[in-house]
């Protein structure tokens, strides 16, 4: 601010840029709750979004003329409420319902509307999340819609986050809304019997977004922090909305513990630095502390421990180890045994192999990993070859190791990962691979 600015008479009207910036920040903070509330009031997503946009357009016009009020959030809520009531009245007047009520009992009309209009914000937000992650939508559509509506991102932001052209994302969102309308999905909280399955679907979306950022499958970068940040925001929202749900806490603990290592996962030239080589002083202590606290809370709440909480417990073993050498691999192996029993899958088995090799030696790991080459779904999965290469290397069989590293290099879509695998293959050719540590090939 220059002195001239300071000398302007009070109240000072915001400059166009300053106002745009403030409204953009307010959209990010307030639009999810404005849309969520409107959803419940008017029932359908299209109308809710349209009204939310009207509210913010009205805000810009009004604030440009009068200045921004002290409590802009309250202004937005009140205006949205007014527009919603207006819309409901006009719609229902057509049907004659409210006209009749209004003629006889004007007071009770207002009262009746109040109940529709001012509900519980937590329920509204949860309803919006359930709708964005609705099972009738494809996984791609769920992620895009959730980022747009629940995180308050623009279509351009969503497109940038997914490295997808904006028109593609815009179309995906339009189609998602059409699908919801065609299936007649209205604002609702799922019945108790459905709730668990619907929450699973929400957690799946959050974990998918997180992983898309954490282990970027395409592109030149090793990870994309923006997507991780959105997933963390969503995870925290969901945990606040369902505070006693242990699997949601497990998911949040898992992604916070994984994200705590984000800064340490990249070297100065953008190359990946794998878990055991990371400078642990770069790990994010606040996220670790939060992750461990949520694991404690899961324990306090009791009940069964689900797959997310188990994976979080594994991540916590790394977080607790002051140095790589302090890692409690036997505990990690036991947790993977539990995870493999709960949700058997070849990928879990691969990680169990890695942990087992660390705890009990490479041959024990190879016993678990080698049978995976016969599993059809693992064909073309570069990490299987990366791990096998590692374990052979540690067992001293450099010829086998080299073959696997080369195959891993040819299969990965990530540029950085490819060059790492090529480097390791060349090192094997000379028999001088010093990166002989199985956990280094694992993506965790």
């Amino acid at each position: 601010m220059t002195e001239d600015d300071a000398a302007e008479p009070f109240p000072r009207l915001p400059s166009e840029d300053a106002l745009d910036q403030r409204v953009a920040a307010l959209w990010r903070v307030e639009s999810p709750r404005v849309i969520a509330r409107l959803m419940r009031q008017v029932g359908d997503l299209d109308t809710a979004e349209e009204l939310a946009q009207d509210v913010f357009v009205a805000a810009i016009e009004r604030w440009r003329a009068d200045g921004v009020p002290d409590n802009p959030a309250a202004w937005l809520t009140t205006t949205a409420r007014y527009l919603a009531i207006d819309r409901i009245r006009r719609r229902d007047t057509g049907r004659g319902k409210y006209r009749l009520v209004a003629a006889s009992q004007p007071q009770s009309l207002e009262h009746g509307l109040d109940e529709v209009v001012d509900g519980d914000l937590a329920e509204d937000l949860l309803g919006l999340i359930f709708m964005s992650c609705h099972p009738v939508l494809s996984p791609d559509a769920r992620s895009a819609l959730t980022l747009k509506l629940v995180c308050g991102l623009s279509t351009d932001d969503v497109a940038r986050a997914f490295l997808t052209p904006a028109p593609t994302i815009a179309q995906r969102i339009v189609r998602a809304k059409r699908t919801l309308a065609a299936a007649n999905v209205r604002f609702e909280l799922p019945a108790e019997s459905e709730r668990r399955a619907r929450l699973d679907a929400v957690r799946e979306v959050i974990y998918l977004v997180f992983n898309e950022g954490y282990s970027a499958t395409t592109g030149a970068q090793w990870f994309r922090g923006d997507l991780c940040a959105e997933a963390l925001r969503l995870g925290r929202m969901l945990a606040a909305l369902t505070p006693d749900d242990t699997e949601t806490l497990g998911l949040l603990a898992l992604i916070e513990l994984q994200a705590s290592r984000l800064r340490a996962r990249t070297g100065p030239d953008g190359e990946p630095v794998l878990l055991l080589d990371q400078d642990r002083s770069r790990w994010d202590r606040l996220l670790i502390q939060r992750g461990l606290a949520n694991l404690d809370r899961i324990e306090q709440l009791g009940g069964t421990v689900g797959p997310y909480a188990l994976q979080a417990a594994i991540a916590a073993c790394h977080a607790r180890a002051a140095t790589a050498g302090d890692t409690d691999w036997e505990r990690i192996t036991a947790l993977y045994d539990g995870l493999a029993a709960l949700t058997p899958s070849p990928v879990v088995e691969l990680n169990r192999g890695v942990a087992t090799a660390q705890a009990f030696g490479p041959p024990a790991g190879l016993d678990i990993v080698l049978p995976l080459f016969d599993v059809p779904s693992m064909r073309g999965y570069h990490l299987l070859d990366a791990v096998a290469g590692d374990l052979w290397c540690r067992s001293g069989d450099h010829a086998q190791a080299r073959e696997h590293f080369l195959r891993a290099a040819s299969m990965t879509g990530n540029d950085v990962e490819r060059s790492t695998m090529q480097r390791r293959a060349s090192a094997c050719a000379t028999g001088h691979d010093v990166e002989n540590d199985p956990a280094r090939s694992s993506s965790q």
Partner: protein
Amino acid sequence: MRYMVMHYQTQDMEDGIPSTAEEQAAIGQYMQEAAMSGVLLSGEGVSSSSKGARVEVQDGTVRVIDGPFAEAKELIAGFAILEVDSLAEAVEHARKWAQIVGTHRVDVRKVVEVEDLVPPQG
């Protein structure tokens, strides 16, 4: 990016006058709403300065002064750490908090990240 949002004491806070039931309810609701926005990482509030102390260093000499301190309104009453996209977003959260908690001032400061400490290359 992270911001530390720090609010200043009111004389009532310094005097240990408990907030009314309505004030407490409003603060509770705000905290719940902040948690629901997914940006709140951590936060604490502190007691009256009569329960604290101050360590002052002047010309290399360390002096410990027990509370309470004058100028109650110049003392921090609590902090929250928010994970947001921009200063503007942090300010919108701080604005609401300031009004709910009834303080005369809230400072919004960017938390130093590891990246900020790395000397520029070349």
